[in-house]
């Protein structure tokens, strides 16, 4: 599976993703500059965390209109996968590739901590290797991660099973105390209607080696690799 890791001015998790994909998972991976529009050589595009374009105006707003993100619509329509983590999730929402918006944390603090995440939907290409109801440990690191969506959008998301991750306690209880940023209904990650675009505030690339305190983030990559092998996407492209 060929991965492209997008680099904007101000991205900071690009090297971490590149390392995990190339060294830990042993998959082909290349950096993609934010001005590039040609994504034909990739199966999955990663939008990493950071502060793209300084997060000026709003987090992810300028990156959401950049050449590489404009090229994503066509990439997705060709069957490509997109994973946006942290700033990448903000960019996907700003670009309209995922519904909703990410706002300043309700506590007003920048939150850098480990979180427990309830996997609510295991029927996506990103989570199919995970047990329903399993709790993953992954870190967050953001000041603007409060997920917001209009009530009717939220209803549609739930009806279509697009909510993938919710902040929870270690035991898997979705409580107010387990919500680090005030996200509506503890939402930490969602997919688009087709299930090929995944946005999440946590950092799977920072939970990919035991030396880093856990490997739960790898389950997302393993799920994705398994999906592609089984449906033959590897061979088709």
């Amino acid at each position: 599976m060929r991965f492209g890791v997008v680099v904007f001015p101000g991205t900071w998790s690009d090297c971490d993703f590149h390392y995990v994909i190339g060294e830990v998972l042993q998959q082909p991976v290349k950096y993609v500059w934010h001005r590039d529009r040609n994504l034909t050589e990739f199966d999955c595009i990663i939008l990493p965390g950071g502060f793209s374009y300084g997060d000026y105006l709003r987090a992810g707003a300028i990156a959401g209109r950049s050449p590489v993100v404009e090229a994503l619509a066509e990439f997705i329509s060709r069957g490509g996968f997109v994973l946006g983590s942290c700033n990448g999730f903000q960019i996907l929402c700003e670009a309209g590739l995922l519904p909703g918006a990410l706002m300043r944390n309700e506590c007003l603090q920048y939150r850098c901590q480990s979180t427990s995440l309830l996997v609510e939907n295991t029927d996506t290409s990103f989570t199919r290797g995970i047990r329903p109801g399993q709790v993953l440990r992954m870190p967050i690191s953001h000041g603007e991660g409060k997920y917001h969506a209009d009530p009717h959008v939220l209803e549609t998301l739930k009806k279509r099973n697009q909510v993938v991750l919710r902040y929870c306690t270690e035991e898997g209880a979705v409580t107010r105390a387990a919500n680090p940023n005030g996200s509506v209904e503890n939402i930490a990650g969602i997919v688009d209607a087709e299930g090929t675009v995944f946005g999440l505030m946590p950092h799977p690339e920072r939970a990919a080696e035991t030396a880093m305190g856990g490997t739960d983030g790898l389950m997302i990559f393993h799920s994705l690799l398994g999906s592609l092998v089984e449906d033959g996407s590897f061979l088709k492209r």
Partner: protein
Amino acid sequence: MKARVLIRLKRGILDVQGSAVKRALEGLGYAELTDLRVGKVIELDIAAADPRVATARVEEMCRKLLANPITEDFSIECPLP
């Protein structure tokens, strides 16, 4: 021609920044404060002769980039003296 865009969080959306500033002012003794919301002002200089054309262009800019329609409302003042 000069134009000014005022961007505000939609009514009903919690403005945590505004709440923090309000609490700080209350701490300074401004007990009469009942609400405070923080917004953004963007000033633009546009090469256009007709204010209606300029306003339409600025409105387009707001929809495409300057405001997030999910969380924010905007208003345009154009032309400015």
